[in-house]
């Protein structure tokens, strides 16, 4: 277990000052990785606030490097405008929990896939009115027919795709022919 004094980049005085400003619980001996995952589970996706960043599967790892906490985050899409905001929200949540200077690493390998959205995350998406991704991304065909997507409102499978692109990069636009409601589908990638 790393000790407080282990850090070579910070003087003892620096750490004392830091401990003055932040609650003393942000230490590896007091806050386990499980606790930190639970903490991150409170951070919601700003564009789809129904699910947390953990449920979305974009938190790839949480590590203690000495007394520094390091979190690996992967973007959903190359151009996702929420990427920076999500990183800020994670930093903010960790600061509020007493981490002085949490480190956020953006990782690209392996690329995020909707297969990483947790079961709970998918259920929450559906309850929020967004049809969760169907099937596995590895089985998607390049020019194949669209899959059958169940309406998140009434459950009917009699739906049609209006557009392969929706209100955000991660969603497609569908319409239910049974209850006539339009809905978003979280694209399978």
């Amino acid at each position, binding site marked *: 277990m790393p000790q407080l004094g282990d850090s070579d980049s910070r003087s003892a005085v620096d750490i004392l000052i830091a401990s003055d400003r932040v609650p003393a619980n942000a230490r590896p001996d007091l806050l386990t990785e499980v606790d930190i995952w639970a903490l991150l589970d409170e951070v919601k996706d700003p564009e789809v606030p129904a699910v947390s960043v953990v449920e979305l599967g974009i938190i790839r790892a949480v590590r203690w490097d000495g007394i520094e906490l390091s979190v690996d985050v992967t*973007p959903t899409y190359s151009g996702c405008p929420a990427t920076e905001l999500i990183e800020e929200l994670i930093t903010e949540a960790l600061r509020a929990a007493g981490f002085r200077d949490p480190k956020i690493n953006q990782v*690209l390998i*392996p*690329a995020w896939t909707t297969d990483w959205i947790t079961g709970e995350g998918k259920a929450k998406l559906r309850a929020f009115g967004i049809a969760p991704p169907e099937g596995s991304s590895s089985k*998607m065909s390049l*020019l194949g027919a669209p899959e059958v997507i169940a309406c998140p409102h009434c459950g009917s499978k009699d739906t049609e795709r209006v*557009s392969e*692109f929706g209100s955000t990069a991660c969603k497609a636009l569908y319409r239910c022919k049974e209850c006539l409601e339009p809905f978003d589908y979280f*694209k399978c990638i």
Partner: protein
Amino acid sequence: MTQTEALKEYLLRLADSDLILSQRLCELCGKAPAVEEEMALMNVALDLVGQARNWYQYAAEQIDDGRDADKLAFRRDAHNYRNLLLTEQPNEDYAVTMGRQFFFDVWHYFTLKSLTESSDERIAGIAAKAVKEATYHLRRSSEWVKRLGDGTEESHQRMQEAVDILWRFTGELITPDDTDRVLAEAGIGPDPDQLANDWRGMVNEVLTQATLTPGPDDAWMYMGGKHGEHTEHLGFILAEMQFLQRAYPDATTW
């Protein structure tokens, strides 16, 4: 040409082609023929600008002269841009917009697919993310080419005209130069023959389904974009795209 020189050049080509096509698509923001089309075009543009940023960041590290991704994008002039000529061609009607997108998407998809197996891990990582997006782009643009080509008399005629107008810029996509060959030999870039075959195969397949005729095999091809020799359009695109950064260099708040 050394491998490092080729890598810098190649990263700029990928980044510049993504950015310029993205900029062209963004010209349609607020002007697309239907709201669903507008969302789709802007989504594609967003994916491309995100990918461009990833390539620029890596290019900036390789070039290592103090310029960051933003400076590479917004402070270089047309002759330093390395984008494919196809990407800078004007939107014209929707047949041209989607035809340009289709020819590009086929090239982009097979290029990225190959790059996911690059010996350069950073390239492989960026490509692994990007190829998923390019797959969606290609599905959409090929559907449009088929729908317009195999549609009404007028849509067929206009789609065929689009193919005829754009064909002269497609040779550049699949004609390798030293940069391409050096990187292919190093296992970093795609195999040029494979890329050319894949591109021709899919383009012919989709055009046939769309009842369209591809251009002749021996057509004259314009090929200067990868070396900074551009059509007259690029200067106008940059004038608009780079205005703010040129007028207020190094501003930290807009």
